[in-house]
């Protein structure tokens, strides 16, 4: 096990490095034009452009540029020349909002996904199963920005049942915080519920046909005991690992659309606004941090998966 962990961690470092290089290339090398002028944003004076050029090292050879870029972003000194705000500070400010959305949605999609998936597996082949499948597929086909906008307007403003957007910090008013998160979490979760219910269904069906389940049944355990003790526990493994990956993706920027529609002002929305303003440092920073988060989470998930299922350690 230790060997696996060590090799996985080594892999992680390599990927982190590659990710940072790729991000650097995407932002500073690939696009045509002068990167210093691009970063400086609107009406920069020549002195400002030169200052930026020196700070980020655009005149230097690529490796030096890379190091300087990483210093700026990871060191936390990068600022948006557009808003004059420190990028890392803004990311930190937006993080609780993004996390609130992600965690809330994750809890929702896991519980609903597992419930629906189990139901579908138990009624496999019957009409109710097909119906559930159809509903799941519909959920996956809904664009979250469209769904979110409609929910915010019709359920929020028109019906007045929920707030039409915005975010209230937990420290200010926990009840209001939760109230404001109902619609966005639901919109985001609907996407994943469909997917997870299908995965769980397949996983349960697979597990149910495994030998150890037949053994358990032969031993005289009731169907319910078989289900809970053996089937569920084993079929949850792939779900949990998938969940880790998706959660990472959502936090790292997958929540952009939901945040924008509901005006939660989280990290994703911060990136989206900066995109519109062609403001490079924030988008660079969010991309880098997001990708890092995913890679680290992936590694953790892989390690946990291997701990739970010994077969994996061998094949990787």
């Amino acid at each position, binding site marked *: 096990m230790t060997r696996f962990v060590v090799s996985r961690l080594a892999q992680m470092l390599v990927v982190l490095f590659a990710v940072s290089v790729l991000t650097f290339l995407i932002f500073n090398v690939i696009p045509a034009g002068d990167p210093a002028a691009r970063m400086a*944003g*609107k*009406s920069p*004076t020549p002195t400002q452009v030169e200052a930026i050029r020196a700070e980020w090292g655009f005149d230097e050879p690529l490796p030096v540029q890379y190091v300087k870029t990483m210093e700026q972003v990871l060191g936390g000194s990068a600022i948006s020349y*557009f*808003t*004059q*705000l420190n990028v890392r500070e*803004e990311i930190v*400010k937006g993080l609780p909002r993004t996390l609130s959305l992600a965690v809330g949605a994750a809890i929702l999609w896991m519980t609903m996904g597992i419930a629906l998936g189990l139901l579908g597996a138990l009624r496999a082949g019957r009409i109710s199963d097909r119906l559930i499948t159809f509903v799941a597929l519909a959920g996956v086909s809904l664009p979250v920005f469209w769904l979110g906008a409609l929910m915010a307007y019709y359920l929020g*403003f028109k019906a*007045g049942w929920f707030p*039409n*957007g*915005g975010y209230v910090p937990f420290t200010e008013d926990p009840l209001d915080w939760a109230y404001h998160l109902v619609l966005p979490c639901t919109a985001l979760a609907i996407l994943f519920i469909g997917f997870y219910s299908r995965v769980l269904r397949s996983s349960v069906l697979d597990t149910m046909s495994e030998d150890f389940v037949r053994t358990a049944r032969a031993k005289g355990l009731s169907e319910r005991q078989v289900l809970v003790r053996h089937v569920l526990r084993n079929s949850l493994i792939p779900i949990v690992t998938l969940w880790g990956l998706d959660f990472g993706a959502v936090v790292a920027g997958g929540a952009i659309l939901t945040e924008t529609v509901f*005006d939660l*002002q989280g990290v994703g929305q911060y990136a989206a*606004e900066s995109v*519109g*303003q*062609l403001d490079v440092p924030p988008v660079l920073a969010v991309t880098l941090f997001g990708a890092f988060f995913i890679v680290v989470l992936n590694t953790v998930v892989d390690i946990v998966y291997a701990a739970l299922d010994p077969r994996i350690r061998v094949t990787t």
Partner: protein
Amino acid sequence: MTAIRGSLTVLALVTMAAAFTACGESSGSDQASQGKQGGSITIAQTSQPDALDPAIAYTSNSWEPLWLVYTAPLTYRRAEGTEGAELIPGAAEALPTISKDGKTYSFKIRKGLKYSDGTPVKASDFEHSVKRVLNLESGGTYLFEGIDGATAYIESGDPDGDIEGIATDDKTGEVTVELTAPDGSFSNVLATNFAGLVPSNTPFSNQTKNPPPGVGPYKISKVVPNREFVMEKVDGFDIPDIPKGNIDTITTKIVQSPSRQAQDVIAGKLDYMQEPPPTDLAAEIKARYSDRYKEWPTLSVSYFFLNHDLPPFDDKEVREAVNVAIDSSAIARLFGGRLKGACSLVPEGIPGRAELDPCPYGDPDGPGDTAKAKQMVEEARATGEKVTVYTNNDSNRQEIGEYYTGLLNDIGLDAELRVVDGAVYSDTIGNQKTKAQTGIVNWYADFPHPATFIQQVDGSTIAETSNPNPSNVRDAEITDGVAELLPEPDLDTVADRWAALDQRVIEESHIAPFGSEELTTFLSDRMDFENCAIVHPLYGNDYSSFCLK
């Protein structure tokens, strides 16, 4: 000033004649501070103001609040309409004494004046405030460059250096400013937000996150960039003719969606929104909430600039064709009706405006004649010429761009639209390298004077970047006319000559004006709309007039 959203703008002005120096009678009934005292309100802006530092701030987002936090030596009467264009003493005791040669301005700071934190105001604070404007490369720098020694100060690069032309005496409170050349508009410069006084220990950097104390009915007590800022009423603020304000606390939240802002004002969760409500909700608001909603004309003009340096608009006939074809009522629909047709560059409400009746291109509020325009384009042999129309993605600017592109195609040109983000739009069209042939401009008056507008077609202001004259007009008659009229101290006597210049702009089709935008005041139910909603012609909704029912 260009668009309402938070984009930094550059004014072309160099000098201006004093607009209204006559001291009329103050009509107390127009001034605020009559309403119920106390309470707190929450208001919204769509984006973070460009800066909350008086030396740098240069958009309506920032001027609207800062006007009440920092008072300059002079200020404008806090009233509606033409009364609001009158200069009155602010931090100074009286209007400045101007020397016979027009080069020296003297005034005295009021005795006992204090900043919101209790620090006494000193005469030398004025010089410090001006130094900050010059040192921080602010958009308002050019306004003060006429002061003797200002250029030398900038070039020296030393923030603590001395500006020769400004002499102050802290004991008597006297300030004397020497200009290098007579400038009849300098009194107006002394009334801008840039001249707002700040203490002499205010650092030479953008103080947005922690604004310095100022002299005014309100002070900024808390700033969370990109989220909100809070203004609190200042006890003990007392300058005659400047209302003390009614509301105790005004919290401005940054809410990116105008739809949500409008929804919240309707529901009473928000008390005021700075931008007009989106067209979608405006219809409902006008129908059901007209008791707390009004539209008012602005000192602004919206037009399509026509680049004289590139085909096809280098040809006068093609430019005329555009003017003939424009249908303001079509564009008005995109404003939700909030547009008044225009047949001049100088807007209504400012002296020196050309009153062309009938308008040479047809009724400004009526339909355009695309058939005739198409013929004109044919005659000019410009049919099929490629044109790229520039617009931005703020509120309805994109839809206007789509209308305009369709229009140009209808009259025989080959047009396509390019949408640029609102934050970088002015810089894009102001950069000669972009080679923008045409696009939208919305220009708001900074001073109540025709020069702000005519200088947009003045050849002497053309620049490589931040070009205030995107049409690149080089019309000798206009350039010479502006140079002659600018130094004139009394606008009323030369208004008709300015109007003649305005007329020439229209007759030569240097630009294609399509109207003047109307802005709005929309308040929540708890605000007293009838008595406490004053609109200033230059600064918009006056927060110091707001009060609760």
